């Protein structure tokens, strides 16, 4: 893919004012994943082929409708990066043989949920990075198998209630550090993003457009149905995820991790947790001081050991 000359995103008014992705998709109201996809598609433009793994977004294209102006290929739950490999290699072969004009080149973007990215699709993703595949990967991470009713996944945070962790303490495990796992492959780019911080998101997409090789994004995707909150709170919850330090915004380039948003004063995690039904048991009927303190301590420990400040 010939890299585009970047548009510079300094202020909100630099953001695209209209969406490229069509309306009327069956995504839930307040879907944090769809918001990220909107921003990403608006910036990447029409010459994008999305390669999808089984998840909520699979329902974006249901015959005979599609919200995309460019390509869409559904693969399976485990092998979307391999689908991207096939498309990228084929397009490169056609370009090389001059069977495809350069202006018809495409940007190949894998779109999967956390179920595929953190689990079943991890080996295919690792392989794509080993092979230095020139592609973008967007993981919309709603911290559970959302499309099947929010069972816990390897991305589920500690203590969250899910439909397979309904006990009084919620999910006993801890969210897997996919950012570090991806970064350990030394791809061109890894970043965490969130739609509620659109400028940070836009700048990162702008940056990765100038690069080639594997460019990996994990977007925390606030999920009204899975996290049990009113859809109108999606942006607020997303901002709080960043402001409390629960979802650090960062990027990895050339062996270095840099935090792109560092709060001078982090808000207490309570503010993020208490808006979500999945953490209600931490606040009702009694405040679970120990449980909340443990979550706060893990967030504090993360930030204490980063030298970002």
């Amino acid at each position, binding site marked *: 893919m010939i890299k585009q000359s970047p548009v510079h995103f300094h202020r909100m008014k630099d953001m695209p004012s209209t969406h490229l992705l069509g309306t009327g998709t069956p995504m839930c109201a307040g879907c944090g994943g769809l918001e990220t996809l909107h921003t990403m598609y608006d910036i990447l433009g*029409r*010459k994008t*082929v999305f*390669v999808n793994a089984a998840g909520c977004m*699979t*329902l974006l*294209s*249901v*015959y005979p409708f*599609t919200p*995309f*102006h*460019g*390509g*869409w*290929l*559904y*693969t*399976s739950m*485990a*092998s979307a*990066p*391999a*689908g*991207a*490999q*096939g*498309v990228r*290699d*084929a*397009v*490169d*072969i*056609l370009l090389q*043989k001059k*069977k*495809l004009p350069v*202006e*018809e*080149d*495409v940007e190949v973007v894998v779109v999967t949920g956390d179920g595929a990215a953190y689990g079943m699709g991890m*080996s*295919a993703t*690792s*392989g794509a990075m*080993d*092979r230095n595949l020139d592609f973008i990967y967007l993981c919309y991470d709603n911290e559970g198998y959302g499309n099947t009713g929010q069972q816990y996944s390897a991305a589920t945070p500690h203590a969250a209630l899910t439909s397979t962790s309904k006990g009084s303490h919620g999910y006993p495990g801890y969210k897997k550090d996919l950012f570090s796992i991806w970064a350990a492959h030394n791809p061109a780019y890894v970043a965490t993003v969130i739609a509620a911080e659109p400028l940070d998101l836009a700048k990162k997409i702008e940056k990765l457009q100038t690069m080639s090789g594997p460019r990996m994004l994990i977007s925390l995707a606030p999920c009204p149905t899975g996290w049990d909150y009113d859809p109108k709170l999606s942006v607020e919850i997303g901002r709080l995820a960043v402001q409390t330090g629960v979802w650090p915004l960062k990027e990895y380039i050339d062996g270095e991790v840099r935090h792109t948003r560092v709060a001078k004063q982090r808000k207490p995690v309570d503010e993020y947790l208490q808006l979500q039904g999945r953490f209600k048991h931490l606040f009702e009927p009694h405040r679970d001081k120990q449980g909340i303190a443990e979550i706060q301590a893990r967030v504090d420990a993360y930030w204490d050991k980063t030298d970002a400040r």
Partner: protein
Amino acid sequence: MTRKLLTGNSAAAWGARLARVDYIPAFPITPQTEIIEDLAAWIDRGEMEARLVTLESEHSMITAAGAAASSGVRAFTATSSQGLLYGMEMVYTVAGWRTPFVMVNVSRGLASPITLESDHNDIMAARDSGFLQIHCATCQEIADSILIAYRLAEHPDVRMPAIVNLDGFYLSFTREPVDLANASKAQAFVGEYDPENLQFRGNSPLSQAMAVLGGGPYSYFRYEAHLAVQRALTVYEEISDEFDDIFGRRYDMIDCYHMDDAEYVFVMLGSFSTKARDAVDNLRAAGWKAGLLRPRLFRPFPQQRIRQLLQGRRAVGIIDQNISMGMGGVLHSEFATALYGLKDAPLLGSYIGGLGGRDINQREFFAIADELKQAYDSGESLPPRLLYTQNELTEMRKLQAIARAEHAEIHQT
């Protein structure tokens, strides 16, 4: 044409080379690996213009093959056994994409117990996927079938992926003289890949493999694929005629040996059928009217042709190199289905043999022929047989005795 001594695997690699494939997603597995090694060596030496990429699994490999064929290039891949099963989700999936490409399967028995040697349970697992299936008995046939398979898969009336099957060890590692088609003649025969509407392009919308809601659209697409596979029967005849005209080698959808006057017929797939061919010669020398029927095209299944060929025969011994647990031989079931209700249909006998590379010896073929004749003479139906000799059982008992002794020893200490 050049005549070379080639293994089945090398013949498969030559088939892909002569078909001028653009793209080879690969993954090693015994006994298929030599195919991708040959192709990789040619590409490295600049003798072949293609891109080979080793994926991290067969599941990804088949995904990449389908995705590349969907993006406008001619793709080739190869696997065996556990690899085919590991990729099975994608075997079914890419068939639904209606993407023509060719995959070679080098048949090998399935775990458990794990083995490296040949039988057909792997390829039978792909039976209902939509992939066309051509089964080979010689190394010559492998190279030629790959050229034919591309034509068939890419034909506008078909547009389905195809598997060319060969037996592990018996063909994969056995050298036979192979007439390699002249490169330009092969190119003229196979032609350019026309991806039709399957091309991802900047600025042109294309959605592939999207979801459907409800049984109506789902059934429509599934029926369409089934009918496309069935159309491959007619198309196959045209293509095999054309191949014969150009290269002087004939590949009918069913290979017949001494079938003109045969009263007793063996049915087998793949290279083990050469053992049955020997048996036919030996039986004929002993005064039998014996014959062999070997389907080359297994999907689509040539039902009408089978009915024509078997009507009026006395009895047919179907030797399956596979086993459907709780049912028996897959080929036997398919032949029984094909012949059901046919006037003057022959008696059918089911024999399972050749599992995990187990030999089928000439005495067994004679025993089968005897049993078929007795059944015909007495009018009694034939019980299904699992081929196993007394000697094999004795050897197995020895192994079991060792296992028991080892077990006892461990528990004593």
